[in-house]
């Protein structure tokens, strides 16, 4: 099976001296979905910010066989789509259509092609009716869909979703799970939600103080680390 992500010995220390990652070895196969569990501050989000070069630590990262380096950064960012926890941070253009077309335009597509691609993915995520709406007028579930559309418009091979169900009500959460299940990309899910992980992931990794403390099937990791709300 082709490796979508291969990380070896990743370490990262923040400017204030906090050692956020302390030797992470991780892999993700093409088409696979992995859930990242762990307490707040355990290094999950810091880790995923490394996957498309937003943070740069020590160690090696390969995405689809391509090493992460200055000259490969732009290519890698089109391969790894990050959906941030807070959709308001991700939606910064004045209209939904412009926001979703932002990535394709940066990839060098013509405005016509970028708009066509944006319309296609918005239709795919069920947001075709909101093309001209301002993102800040959408509900939390709609914002999340548009944020995912913005990432899908870049045609990534890997989707990284940071706490995708935060702020969502139960129907919006159900819709999101259905949407994500239908996407063929390999997925990294950063979540506290064991049910979501069970629904979408085949494997789970548990982070603890910047290290991987355990790895295995989702049910096994949930039970081993008592990772449920009740």
């Amino acid at each position, binding site marked *: 099976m082709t490796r979508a992500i291969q990380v070896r010995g990743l370490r990262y220390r923040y400017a204030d001296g906090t050692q956020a990652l302390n030797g992470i070895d991780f892999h993700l196969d093409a088409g696979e979905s992995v859930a990242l569990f762990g307490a707040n501050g355990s290094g999950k989000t810091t880790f995923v*910010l490394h996957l498309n070069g937003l943070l740069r630590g020590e160690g090696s990262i390969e995405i689809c066989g391509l090493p992460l380096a200055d000259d490969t950064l732009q290519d890698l960012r089109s391969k*790894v789509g990050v959906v*941030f926890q807070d959709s308001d941070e991700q939606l*910064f253009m*004045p209209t939904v259509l412009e926001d979703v077309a932002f990535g394709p335009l940066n990839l060098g597509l013509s405005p016509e092609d970028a708009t066509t691609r944006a319309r296609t993915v918005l239709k795919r995520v069920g947001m075709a009716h909101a093309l001209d709406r*301002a993102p800040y007028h959408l509900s939390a579930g709609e914002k999340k869909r548009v944020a995912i559309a913005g990432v899908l418009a*870049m045609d990534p091979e890997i989707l990284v979703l940071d706490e995708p169900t935060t702020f969502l009500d139960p129907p919006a959460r159900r819709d999101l799970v259905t949407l994500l299940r239908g996407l063929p990309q390999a997925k990294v899910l950063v979540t506290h939600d064991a049910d979501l992980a069970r629904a979408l992931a085949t494997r789970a990794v548990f982070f603890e103080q910047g290290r991987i403390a355990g790895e295995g099937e989702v049910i096994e990791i949930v039970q081993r680390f008592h990772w449920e709300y009740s």
Partner: protein
Amino acid sequence: MHHLVIDRWSRGSSPLHARDPRAKLAVLLVFLVAVSTTPPRAQLAFVAYAALLIVAIRLAHLPLRGMAGRAALVLPFSATFALITWWSGDPLRALALAEKSFLSGMAALLMVSSTPLTAWTAALESWRAPRMLILVIQFVYRYLFVIAEQAQRMRWAALCRRGTQKGYFDFSAAAGLLGVLFARSWQRADGIYHAMLSRGFHGRFVPSPPPPFRASDAMFCSTCFAGCLAIRLLL
């Protein structure tokens, strides 16, 4: 919120909204030059400029009172200089200073309220304005949203816990809020920047190609240029 209102206004449909952004920018530039070079004694000219703006605001289907209120935000700054000028014994110049800044603010507000940000920054880019300047405008505009939203949330949170305390409490709370506001806004702006980078942003917003400059746009420019020139030279 105010910034949302202007953004909404800019996406309206009116004869002024339909004009090419380059035409509106050119007219704004000519208007600003005309206003700033008008001598203080030509008070009738300032009335005429104001009348011209009122006609344009009506044409753009924008609320006159709302526009005037927002344009008046520039007054505290110019009023300081106007007061100094007044005290130095030149009340007419002081009045002209306030009038010029208000009219200029109103004209600039009319332009941004009748043209989406992406359209007028694309127009600036087509004029080969420095890219760094355009980038700064685009970032400032986006981050204004961030700061305003953050301020709104914090204000609500403070009001919820204020109870019946007023006066000194308001002042000390506001001072504390201001510090936290900038720290949080910075954090959020950083998050937005990360989101932009992760979607391939490489230091430049890709502008849409400008639409063809039509005869009606040229006509609009000529009429406005003629109006500004006539007021400047004849009144």
